[in-house]
């Protein structure tokens, strides 16, 4: 297991390198950062001077290797726009994004598990059908639309909740619900089908035959066994959420890494973009490793096999 772990880690490092190189190239193609740094009516000579001062006149490979050399030493460069360390900017915004994601995930997992378990337990009932239809429906909701509609209802009309920024717990409610909604559908159906699979299995039938109560079957037997696929799905969803919350963050003016990255991209603030890609990449890698380990620990089949 350890060598597999190390292999994955080594591969992840390679992936990160590839990702950072591609990002660098894409942003290089996007245009000249010196022009954006120059004053409104800068002459060509002034732009050239800025290009030199920042080293944009060097070949892209040299620029990339230079960046990489510093990155290895923990220096991700300084934002062209704010002149602050790029990593500092990202790490400053990251807690907000993580908080938002954590709340959204807590909301969607808890709702998804409850709804999914109930649907599976009362399979074929009206409630079950409602869950199936409802989950298809929530997965058809674009988050930009859901966000706007919630702002319309809860802020513009009812004046109950704030809509933008982050100055207290109440600011968290609308964005977290928006972000969670799509996932609730995924989780509810996932839980439902894993539960059904387990409920159909021999050992549950045996338990039932032995006269175990419905409650002990669901919570004592089925749910623990269905936990494995649920964890996998949660992990995969989480991996996509770090950088995937961008629409929600934009709609609610959430001061997270995604809004930061969006503005860095428009101003071609390369060090900030690179730091964003790197930090999000590392988070995804860590998440996947943790899920992988959990999987190995929890799954009786892999426990013995590897």
């Amino acid at each position, binding site marked *: 297991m350890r060598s597999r772990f190390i292999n994955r880690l080594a*591969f992840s490092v390679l*992936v*990160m390198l*590839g*990702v950072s190189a*591609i*990002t660098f190239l*894409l*942003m290089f*193609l*996007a*245009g000249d950062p010196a022009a954006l740094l120059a004053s409104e009516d800068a002459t060509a000579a002034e732009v050239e001077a800025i290009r030199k001062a920042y080293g944009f006149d060097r070949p892209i490979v040299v620029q990339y290797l230079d960046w990489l050399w510093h990155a290895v030493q923990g220096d991700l460069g300084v934002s062209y726009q704010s002149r602050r360390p790029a990593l500092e900017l990202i790490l400053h915004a990251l807690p907000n994004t993580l908080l938002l994601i954590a709340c959204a995930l807590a909301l969607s997992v808890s709702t998804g598990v409850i709804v999914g378990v109930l649907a599976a337990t009362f399979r074929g009932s009206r409630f079950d059908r409602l869950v199936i239809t409802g989950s*298809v*429906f929530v*997965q*058809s909701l*674009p*988050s*930009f*639309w859901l966000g*706007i*509609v919630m*702002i*319309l209802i809860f802020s*513009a009309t009812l004046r109950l909740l704030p809509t933008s920024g982050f100055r207290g717990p109440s600011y968290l409610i609308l964005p977290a619900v928006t*972000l969670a909604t*799509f*996932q609730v559908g*995924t989780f509810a*159906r*996932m839980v*439902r*089908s*894993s539960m*059904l*699979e387990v409920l*159909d299995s021999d050992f549950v039938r045996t338990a039932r035959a032995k006269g175990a109560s419905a409650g002990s079957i669901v919570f004592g037997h089925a749910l623990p066994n269905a936990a494995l696929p649920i964890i996998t*799905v949660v992990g*995969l*969803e989480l*991996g*996509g*959420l*770090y*950088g*995937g919350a*961008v*629409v929600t963050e*934009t*709609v609610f003016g959430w001061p997270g890494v*995604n809004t930061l990255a*969006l503005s860095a*991209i428009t101003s*071609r603030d390369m060090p900030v*973009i690179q730091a*964003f*890609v790197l930090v*999000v*990449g590392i988070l995804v*890698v860590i998440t996947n490793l943790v899920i992988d380990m959990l999987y190995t620990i929890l799954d009786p089949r892999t426990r013995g096999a590897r």
Partner: protein
Amino acid sequence: MSHATSLPLRPQPQSPSKARPINLRLLIPAGLLGVIVVIACLAPWISPYGPNSQDLSARLLPPLWQAGGSTKHLLGTDDLGRDILTRIMYGARVSLSIGAIAVICRMVSGVLIGLVAGYFGGPLLTFFMRLGDVQLALPTLVLAIGVIAALGPSTSNVILVLAITGWVLYARLVVSQVIVVRRQDYIASAQLLGASHCRIIFKHLLPNIIPSVIVFASLDLGLMMLTEGSLSFLGLGVQPPEPSWGGMAAGGRALISTAWWIATLPGAALVVTVALVNVLGEQLRDRLDPRLDATRSA
């Protein structure tokens, strides 16, 4: 774009034991979607106005049922006095065509790569699968904005971004099936009989994987429409004044408290369309490929 990762995670199919007569569950959504497609196709002939014809004296009219609404503009007008209903009709063209073309691009490139890489295996397979890993680790946003900043925002570049981010999913699905199929006897006998690689791939492997690819693609369509909407909402997709549902929502967002209909109605059209597409996709899966599960196929 928070939807982007969710596709492979579709839950397991409902139990196949369910009774399935030729039912209304398939016909009703198919019929409704058909209506939307027809409206999209016929928009220039059946829409009451031109999509970009402004009337500054009829700005911000509410929908018919609200005080101040008029029968001239059933769903009201936007800040330039353009008819919302007309623009929603034209928006259907944009949303459906981009969704469909993007899915076809993703599907064709992914299936080809998957077939070839899966059939030959070895370093070729490793290369594409590792490339796919890198691809999936790159935030869609960065990729989208990078491509669009480099090439300029346009409809074709939206499709390009969607294709680039999607081929991996199809390729993984295909590879997992090809690896299983190619071990079977009839492939070996075809090889012994001297069939060319090309013939084996397209005559023997391709037909085997088509059902699951089609099901996967039908579920992908809704997601692509949502992603296009999000990109256009962020200003990275279809450019105004071309009426796209996401772009219209972005344009009306600032006026949400005074003219709610501008931002919400186009989004509602997207919700309805995607929901119909998804319901159909689910039905299709139940029928064609009840065991499709992309999550663990890689």
